[in-house]
């Protein structure tokens, strides 16, 4: 079969919508995971940042167990947020530099799915390790086991929110000088509800009032963000590439 006859034949096949989107989504996620695996170092840096920042607090406020227990949830949440934000400015940067981002935006498939894929991959690479290390740091801050469990659960809900909002920020600040700091400035105010509900959940468990209300609010915020952020991020990408 000649090359030209072959590619005319290819053009005949009509796509089916839903399975294509899933295929596209998983293709993007797998690609980003492969790239992260081959780059090694990157995800470890964010993790070390998380650990080091949280370790600074006992040094600066003193080691009294009660005080640490009081500030623990907040410190861990803020540190996890900052650690994730570090890596978010590079979400699209690498692809932008070698021209892959343009190819991805020129795809006939939805840019929204693309953004969702990249945000998910970011969460898997940078968010999940934070969840795994958080219990150890929780012990450092003298948190009881129930509190640590709720902390991990709250971070489980909160870190995807950050990846999604961060995708919007990364798209808006694509290619700008000082992009990382600007991204943090833009995204942190939008992220405060997650911070409040997340730390509130852990405090609630420690105070005995329960964490369900906070966690459900956090879950609702995650739902709203996942419905709004991908669209805004996709539009922002197009604007940034014009």
């Amino acid at each position, binding site marked *: 079969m000649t090359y030209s006859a072959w*590619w005319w034949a290819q053009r005949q096949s009509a796509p089916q919508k839903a399975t294509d989107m899933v295929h596209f989504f998983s293709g993007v996620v797998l690609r980003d995971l492969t790239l992260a695996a081959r780059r090694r170092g990157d995800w470890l840096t964010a993790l070390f940042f998380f650990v080091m920042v949280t370790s600074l607090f006992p040094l600066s406020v003193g080691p009294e167990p009660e005080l640490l227990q009081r500030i623990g949830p907040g410190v861990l949440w803020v540190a996890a947020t900052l650690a994730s934000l570090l890596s978010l400015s590079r979400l699209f940067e690498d692809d932008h530099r*070698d021209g892959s981002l*343009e190819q991805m935006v020129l795809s*006939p498939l939805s840019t929204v799915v693309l953004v969702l894929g990249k945000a998910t991959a970011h969460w898997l690479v940078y968010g999940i390790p934070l969840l795994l290390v958080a219990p150890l740091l929780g012990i450092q801050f003298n948190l009881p086991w129930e509190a640590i469990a709720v902390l991990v659960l709250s971070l489980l809900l909160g870190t995807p929110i950050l990846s999604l909002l961060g995708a919007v920020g990364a798209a808006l600040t694509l290619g700008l000088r000082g992009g990382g700091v600007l991204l943090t400035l833009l995204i942190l105010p939008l992220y405060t509800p997650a911070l409040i509900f997340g730390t509130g959940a852990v405090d609630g468990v420690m105070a005995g009032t329960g964490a369900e209300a906070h966690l459900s609010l956090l879950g609702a915020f995650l739902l709203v963000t996942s419905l709004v952020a991908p669209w805004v991020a996709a539009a922002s990408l197009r604007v940034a590439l*014009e």
Partner: protein
Amino acid sequence: MDPTPAASLSAHNLACERGDRLLFRRLSFTLSRAQLLLVQGGNGQGKTSLLRLLTGLGRPDEGEVRWSGESIARCRDRYHRDMAHLGHANGIKDELNPLENLRFHAVLRDRPFEPGQAVATLRRLGLSRCLDLPCRALSFGQRRRVALAALLLGGASLWVLDEPLTGLDVNAIALVEDLIREHLHAGGMVVATTHQAMNLEGVDVQRLVVGPAPVRSAESH
């Protein structure tokens, strides 16, 4: 086997501003099957900007681009299915090897990936010894050829190429010219910018010179 006989790329009164400079205005042309549009002009005169407008990445300040009579802003997905772009950057990830890059490009283009076909294409482009190497280990010319392989496998009828010959050696240049010729003979369309001389025997060429207004519109050769 001629699915879209009416396929054509047309531009109507395009105008483009970059910052304070007006790059061009009232730019129009029509490109039909088996035609090549050669865009020429000095550096920084707007060739790349024009190509960005044609791909839909950039929005024109005036006028519109149409694919088969319909504005590309309205049929974006359909247009992107039929159009492939090769810019200055290759769109190739350094950490992946050529086959992995092609697999992802197939996902992007919403096409099935056939390893056999991909390997055959890479071999044809002279990359048979590079199949397992990460693209970081390849030279610029070799990476360009991986990008060309992606172009070939992309199934697009319109190719928009920005300086396709840059950084290639003589053999590779001849190869690219062959591929373009083949694509045109099969009924495809090509828009290309270049400041190098291209051997375009037997090809229906329109030339478009982009520069400060007034723009001379396309003349056929």
